């Protein structure tokens, strides 16, 4: 096994462990219905989190994803219902707008040398504000295609459903894995996050990669928005508030370092599922007041991070011990 994959394995292990614990208490959680729900309900989160994984591996952060999702839903609702645009036109159009928006943020980050935190914060205000300009109402989408698409699902045993949007998410996760680990672009993203200066000296155009990364994140957020719009068949300017924090948490739980240069799309996927699992568990319990829900979510997050750290620490120590014992004088010691 490669040491690089350790955090990923830990995340998956924790997911299985947590699921087992949940199922031990509520056997109904071990059903296809719950599994189907996990995938469907977290589809938009998963898609946005894939984009966030790229951004964080490149050493940045994107706070605008929730706002872009909301803008996409509002745009689609208005475009399909008020402007009478065909979905075949509206979908590519909104993705293109988002790509441009993300590229713009990437360009500001790179050329004005401003921290991504602030640039994407401004982007968040801008996208959320743009929603209000289109409409402040929540607008239902009545286009017949939506009914067709939402009505499409594979039936799982026990009343579970594998919906179209869940499939879209699984597709995006797969493509994300391919893009990150099996393309030159993916390697450039790692390079940029590992050490921007060294990457530049190795001939990587930091500007282009930065712009592409943020464009990708915004584009995926738009796809997440399309999924969200299918999920609710509506456009709403206050949709997906705070989703950026959920995605960041999912990415970090998935074993990606916020400092950049390391991480996995698959880990992010597991991180999304873990968060979904926590929510499902709390709903199954059903006795928590609003405030205890918040406290418990916080504590579970803490417990998870702690567990993750302990496992990584223990394994790293073992690995270091082996390296020092086996190859003293050749391998360098971690300080």
């Amino acid at each position, binding site marked *: 096994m490669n040491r690089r994959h350790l955090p990923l394995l830990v995340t998956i292990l924790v997911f299985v462990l947590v699921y087992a614990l949940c199922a031990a208490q509520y056997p109904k959680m071990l059903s296809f219905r719950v599994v189907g729900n996990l995938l469907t309900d977290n589809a938009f989160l998963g898609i946005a989190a894939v984009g966030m994984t790229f951004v964080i591996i490149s050493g940045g952060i994107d706070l605008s994803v929730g706002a872009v999702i909301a803008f996409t839903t509002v745009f689609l609702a208005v475009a399909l219902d008020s402007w009478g645009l065909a979905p075949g036109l509206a979908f590519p159009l909104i993705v293109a707008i988002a790509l441009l928006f993300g590229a713009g943020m990437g360009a500001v980050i790179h050329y004005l*040398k401003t921290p991504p935190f602030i640039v994407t914060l401004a982007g968040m205000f801008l996208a959320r504000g743009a929603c209000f300009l289109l409409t402040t109402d929540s607008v239902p989408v009545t286009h017949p295609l939506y009914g067709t698409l939402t009505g499409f699902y594979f039936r799982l045993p026990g009343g579970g459903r594998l919906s179209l949007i869940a499939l879209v998410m699984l597709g995006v996760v797969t493509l994300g894995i391919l893009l990150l680990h099996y393309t030159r672009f993916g390697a450039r993203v790692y390079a940029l996050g590992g050490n921007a*200066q060294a990457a530049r000296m190795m001939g990587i155009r930091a500007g282009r990669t930065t712009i592409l990364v943020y464009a990708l994140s915004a584009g995926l957020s738009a796809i997440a928005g399309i999924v969200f719009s299918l999920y609710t068949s509506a456009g709403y300017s206050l949709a997906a508030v705070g989703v950026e924090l959920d995605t960041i948490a999912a990415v970090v739980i998935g074993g990606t370092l916020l400092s950049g240069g390391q991480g996995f799309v698959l880990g992010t996927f597991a991180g999304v599922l873990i968060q979904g699992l926590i929510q499902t568990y709390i709903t199954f319990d059903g006795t928590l007041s609003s405030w205890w829900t918040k406290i418990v979510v916080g504590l579970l997050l803490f417990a998870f991070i702690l567990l993750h750290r302990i496992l990584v620490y223990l394994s790293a120590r073992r690995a270091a011990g082996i390296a020092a014992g086996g190859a003293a004088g050749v391998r360098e010691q971690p300080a």
Partner: protein
Amino acid sequence: MTRHLKAAAPQLAALFLVLLANWIVFPEFFHIRVQDGRLYGSLVDVFNRGAPVALLAIGMTLVIATRGIDLSVGAVMAIAGATAATLVNDGHGAMTAIAAALAVGLLCGLWNGILVALLDIQPIIATLILMVAGRGIAQLITEGQIVTFVDPALIFMGSGAIAGIPMPVILAFLALCVTLFLYRRTALGLLTEAIGINRRASAYAGVNARAVLLVAYAWCGLTASLAGIIAAADIKGADANNAGLWLELDAILAVVIGGTSLFGGRFRLVLSFVGALIIQAMNTGILLSGFKPEFNLIVKAFVILVLLLMQSGASGALLDRLALIRSRPRLAPEGKEVS
């Protein structure tokens, strides 16, 4: 002194421009009169309403200087307000309530500090925990209700005035002065900057990085709790659901506008304070302008972009600084070496 003034030029220019814009949309912007023994006017509002974010920005500056970030300050505000309100309603004196609220804030800060300094959890995630759970704790204290109180001493913290100057402004300035004293009259500021720039080298030089981190987060919790007390006193009630909601973003923004790098290191407390005033001046301007509320966020986004452009374009020195900071872990350009 002139060097300091020169470094502050972009921020002061930005503040001037925003105030000018306010004056254009509302010609009486600078009118100030005395009402019930306190100064009254839009400019006073900028300071008065800006005080909580300014307080948050003070603590946030210190945390950011250590190369960290604190997302929990908004939640800490809610906890502190809830604590103070509940205690005065239980018959404790205002002083006890305030002291307890500050102590709770300090405790929250220490918790963050422990996660970051001792458990080595990345700050953004470590403080995310309290950001999520903290508001729950505040609601637990108030049971989800707005706890209204009538204690005049506690209310004085929010809407009282001394010599015509509103209490929140006095408290924010006081906190700034105390923090400046604590960090600049002692060696704490130097040590904070040192660990923010190069934690390992500082540790090798004998700097107790953990202690410095703990102090920064604790102080951040303390200033946040003071902001929370003010926010509660201002409306004579602790609103655990909404007090300080999303203010952490404003505070971070204020610090960045103030010119402290998110990559840690050199920090500028006074300019963070100015940054908070710039943000509030912008908010007040939007309210006075009579724009539809739908435009608020768009206006805010554009003002931030313009500020960023000003900081990077108008001041080449700052651009160099940022460029240098971004490339810190790498080689310094040899061309600048002294031969």
